[in-house]
């Protein structure tokens, strides 16, 4: 099927619900006509209001409800239209869900999935644009995936639902409209292995989620300049596939990490630290990181453009890592920019 990311998510959820009557989908807006950017479209009609239901605005308790339901035999998929709302659920997710199986000596397990969308599109501002993967990477006990392609979206969501542990899936609004070929039959990706999006020999770029699109844009341009980058997409950030990253850096000798969130104590700092620890001798140049600037996300367009890392920044850093000077040419975009109205 040639479908987009949102449709792939919908397709995965549909197939999971068809296969397993214990799978339920819950969350604010999952049953409305907008259907979380289409990703739950038609499911309430197909499976009924007992299995697909809207909730009151109560992220904390509803997360606890998902945990309790999982302990009762259900497999809830709890959906949030913005990652930012997860702050309200962190006590439940990190004090309870992350610790449950371990703290109770491996008794009780929590097969539930939290899906949350990074709001970036335009003008979402400080409270509707965040991506909190590093929190789930820091506290042990939750798996964290970030699908990039429609294929990932389906394969990872089906895997997440099948997994006996709590899995948080962070999606990206700007990826929702990307289309690709996706197998019709159910399939799962492993929650762990990274995906090499592009093979190359000069620089390893570890990028996740929408940052892969920017990295690919940069790579295409760099290719024309005879610079050959490798792009590693961790896809699953907890647990993290250190090996694939290290192997790539052993080959290229150079690492740039590009993350959707802030740099400080972010996913990019972990990946950088990991390589510094484990592949120090392979490095021909200092590791570099790119992420959102260390401020809150602003609404004003020129500020927002400065805030987010992009293909230009990637090219610039790659040049400097290779000791070349960057002339700041225009880089052709591979995607159509987000266009309103909202």
């Amino acid at each position, binding site marked *: 099927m040639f479908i987009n990311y949102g449709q792939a998510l919908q397709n995965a959820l549909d197939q999971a619900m068809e296969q397993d009557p214990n799978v339920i989908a819950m969350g604010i807006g999952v049953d409305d006509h907008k259907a979380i950017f289409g990703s739950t479209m038609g499911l309430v009609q197909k499976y009924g209001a007992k299995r697909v239901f809207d909730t009151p605005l109560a992220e904390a308790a509803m997360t606890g409800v998902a945990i309790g339901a999982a302990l009762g035999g259900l497999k809830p998929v709890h959906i949030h239209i913005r990652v930012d709302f997860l702050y309200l659920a962190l006590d439940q997710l990190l004090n309870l869900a992350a610790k449950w199986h371990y703290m109770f000596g491996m008794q009780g397990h929590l097969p539930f999935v939290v899906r949350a969308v990074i709001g970036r599109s335009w003008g979402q501002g400080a409270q509707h644009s965040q991506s909190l993967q590093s929190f789930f990477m820091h506290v042990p006990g939750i798996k964290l995936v970030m699908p990039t392609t429609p294929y990932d979206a389906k394969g990872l969501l089906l895997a997440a639902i099948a997994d006996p542990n709590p899995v948080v899936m962070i999606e990206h609004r700007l990826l929702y409209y990307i289309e690709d070929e996706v197998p019709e039959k159910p399939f799962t990706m492993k929650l762990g292995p990274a995906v090499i999006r592009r093979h190359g020999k000069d620089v390893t770029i570890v990028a996740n989620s929408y940052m892969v699109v920017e990295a690919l844009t940069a790579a295409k341009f760099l290719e024309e300049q005879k610079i050959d980058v490798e792009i590693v997409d961790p896809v699953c950030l907890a647990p993290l596939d250190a090996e694939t990253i290290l192997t790539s850096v052993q080959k290229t000798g150079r690492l740039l990490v590009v993350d959707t969130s802030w740099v400080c104590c972010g996913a990019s700092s972990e990946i950088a630290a990991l390589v510094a620890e484990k592949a120090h001798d392979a490095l021909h140049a200092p590791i570099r990181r790119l992420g959102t*600037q260390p401020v809150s996300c602003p*609404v004003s367009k*020129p500020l927002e453009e400065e805030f987010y890392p992009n293909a230009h920044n990637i090219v610039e850093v790659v040049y400097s890592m290779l000791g070349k000077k960057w002339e700041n040419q225009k880089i052709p975009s591979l995607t159509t920019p987000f266009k309103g109205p909202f």
Partner: protein
Amino acid sequence: MQTMVDLQTISELYKIMLKIRLTEEKVAEIYPSDKIQSPIHLSIGQEAVAAGVCMALGPENKIFSTYRSHGIFVAKGGDLRLMFAELYGKETGCAGGKGGSMHLLAPEVGFLGSSAIVASTIPLATGNALASDYQDRKWVSTAFFGDGALGEGVFYESLNFAILKNLPVLYICENNGLAVHSRVEDRHHNSDLYRYGERLGVTGSRHDGDDVLTVYTVTKNAIKDILLGGPPILLEFTTCRWSEHVGPGTDHDEMYRDQDKVSQALANDPINRIQKVLQTQFEITDGQLSTWRNNIVDEINQAVIFAEESSFPSPEDLYQGVFMKQDI
């Protein structure tokens, strides 16, 4: 109740409501041009709540609000130019272009801020009231929120603390019956939201939020009682959101809408209602009304020009203001 309000106040309320309506319509008109690159949550149809409450509050009492705050900004007396500039993301905006439509404020008239996290400013108003109490109840702090906010735990936590400490805080629930596309009865077993604080000890009452004179009078009385040392109060104002949840359009035909409610609301335009009072009880002429309207239209047009002509912040401004410098 209506005759207790004098002509000048009624005229003022009318003008505020009209200004909100025309402002929102202007925003909706501009929106497809992509000059406003930020989600907008219009309050067309809900003007009476903002107007009545804010007029009763005056600039000296404080307010904390939500992403749906264009109306409150106008009603509290914010400078319209700063609001349009903010929507445009210009450096002259009320938040320097950093906040956008969802984060308006006008501290000079007591509008201290607004948040896009539902219910999140309810505790802020409560804490601000603690500061007022500390200074002999200098002001009333007000939390503005929708019916959706009553799902969130901080609502209850805040009310519990407010009544425990008897704080000068006013809770305004603007109940338009909807949270995005979800009806209040699909989120709450009991639809009497105004009673949700009752067992904690916070008395509430429900009123027609489309009758601006009621909104104004009820709020005025609540403020008086609170400033005299009375307990916190919860006021629920019922109203109808004419616009879609987010965006410039309408969606009256969508399934989630209660068609009767929509038609009834449209037929009982809150602005028409107060206009009729002015015309019939106070014999305000069409000429007078159109002078008012023209002045408002002028002000809005000026504000738009101001926004259009203002500069964007420069990229370096991105890095300013994470922290306030030490010496204030």
